[in-house]
């Protein structure tokens, strides 16, 4: 257990290998009005690897993901308890600027949700609002972001076309490059492939594999094969509780908890 002392600020706790802790969650509870969606969840997400969150619908895994960049803030009547530290800094501290936080923790959603703008403008949107680049620098940044999302070759001739003209898989990669354009430290993915066909899913998975060299990735998925394929660590949620968290190989082959075993072997959920 990590010391809760604020003065220590454990920026990167060495744990089992060379990966330091990027995000540390302690006793996180979340309420939609009276309903408690997360119950005392504690876990550590390590940097530059993929952490998968699995569990049946309504188990709180998406809510947990959205707690990491404070997207739950926009829900009326919602309440968060507990501590979430990003690089040792409590993101729920009143002094924290949500805008700055979300610059560091990007998010990709379940359904591709490009803006009603051109391909270029979609990627340029966030760098513009944060004043990162303009003119030819911006063009370079957009190109670079599209390359990192493995989309450049497919869209380089239609940067001015509407983002809605792209296929679903391309749209999702566009949403990923939109996030990469502000170079966040963490990328949260909320079932990024659930609206995509198998070929597009494969492309996104390959992309995630590349991205983990540089980014800390947390992915929520309904697809257990996907979690097993892409992630190094996996957490299993049930009824708002984190039942089990550990190396993916262990979770999927030799889970400690009976409920985890029932779920990963397809006995329910």
């Amino acid at each position: 257990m990590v010391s809760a002392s604020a003065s220590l600020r454990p920026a990167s706790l060495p744990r089992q290998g060379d990966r330091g802790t990027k995000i540390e969650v302690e006793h996180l509870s979340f309420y939609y009005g009276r309903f408690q969606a997360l119950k005392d969840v504690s876990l550590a997400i390590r940097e530059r690897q993929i952490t998968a969150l699995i569990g049946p619908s309504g188990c709180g895994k998406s809510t947990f993901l959205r707690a990491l960049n404070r997207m739950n803030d926009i829900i009326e009547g919602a309440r968060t308890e507990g501590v979430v530290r990003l690089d040792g800094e409590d993101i729920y501290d009143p002094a924290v600027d949500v805008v700055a936080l979300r610059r560091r923790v990007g998010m990709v959603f379940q359904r591709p949700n490009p803006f009603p703008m051109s391909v270029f403008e979609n990627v340029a949107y966030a760098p513009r609002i944060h004043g990162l680049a303009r003119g030819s620098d911006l063009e370079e940044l957009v190109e670079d972001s599209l390359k990192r999302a493995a989309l450049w070759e497919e869209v380089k001739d239609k940067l001015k076309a509407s983002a809605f003209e792209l296929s679903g898989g391309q749209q999702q990669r566009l949403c990923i490059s939109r996030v990469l354009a502000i170079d966040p430290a963490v990328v949260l993915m909320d079932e990024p492939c659930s609206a995509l066909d198998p070929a597009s899913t494969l492309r996104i998975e390959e992309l995630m594999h590349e991205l983990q060299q540089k980014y800390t990735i947390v992915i929520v998925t309904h697809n257990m094969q996907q979690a097993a394929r892409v992630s190094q660590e996996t957490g299993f949620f049930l009824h708002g509780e984190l039942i089990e968290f550990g190396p993916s190989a262990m979770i999927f082959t030799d889970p400690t908890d009976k409920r985890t075993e029932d779920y990963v072997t397809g006995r329910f959920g």
Partner: protein
Amino acid sequence: MSALAARRAGLQQLRRRAANSTMWFVAVLCVLAAILPLGFVLYYVLAQGASGINLDFFTKLPKPVGEPGGGMANAIVGSLILVGLASLVGLPVGILGGIYLAEFGNNRFAWTIRFLSDVLSGVPSIVVGIFIWAMVVVPTHRLSGMAGGAALGVMMIPTVMRTTEELVRLVPMSLREASLSLGATHRRTVFKVVLVAARGGVVTGVLLAVSRIAGEAAPLLLTAGSSPFWSTRIDQPMPSLPVQIFTYAIQPYDDCHRQAWAAALVLVSLVFVLSVAARYATRGRFRMVR
């Protein structure tokens, strides 16, 4: 299948087909009934107004009543200025109000605004005219384009506000989330993403409002008044097509009537051109696929 059962099935099918064609016929009839008056109005305005249209009509000032010839150049320009002034009042208030109702409108204050706006959209235009007359014309001791623009602007607000609200509400939450998750503020999200996505619908609302006020004569009689001269100063009485139509239509001279029809035709065309232009300017290149 027995012969009897087969006959019954055939009968059922026959009845179903008969019901189907009957309903189709009734539906088509209703559509025709809805379109017919519109067609007649357009045809009549065109047939009656076309003969009065000539270069003079667009370039000359009105002749004194009873004298043939002359045009309505001042009223055409006046109408455009009045609609412009009205938009200056009605669009910012309507659009920003609509955004407020859609984005923050979950409280008693917003509920009250919504109710009042619905009431306002039902208020007869002449009453709006009297209101502006009392608020602007009486204190300034003069009918003016300003007062006319204010009256028309007030009339625009409910239409623009409620359509903006509805359309902004329709923008999927996922778009807002995408913008917010990239570190955009709520303000930027609304103006750069939500409004852009709702643009087509908002324009439709604005056009509806403009079309409605462009043809209003009653409130202008009490606010902008009329003038046989060039009048581009908004602190002076300002002529307009609807008021001119009214003035000419009640004259006993055939030439006046022809002028009134021509003015009606110009008014209809003006609204039509405005609609097409606005649609073209904001056409949905980035239309959302639903």
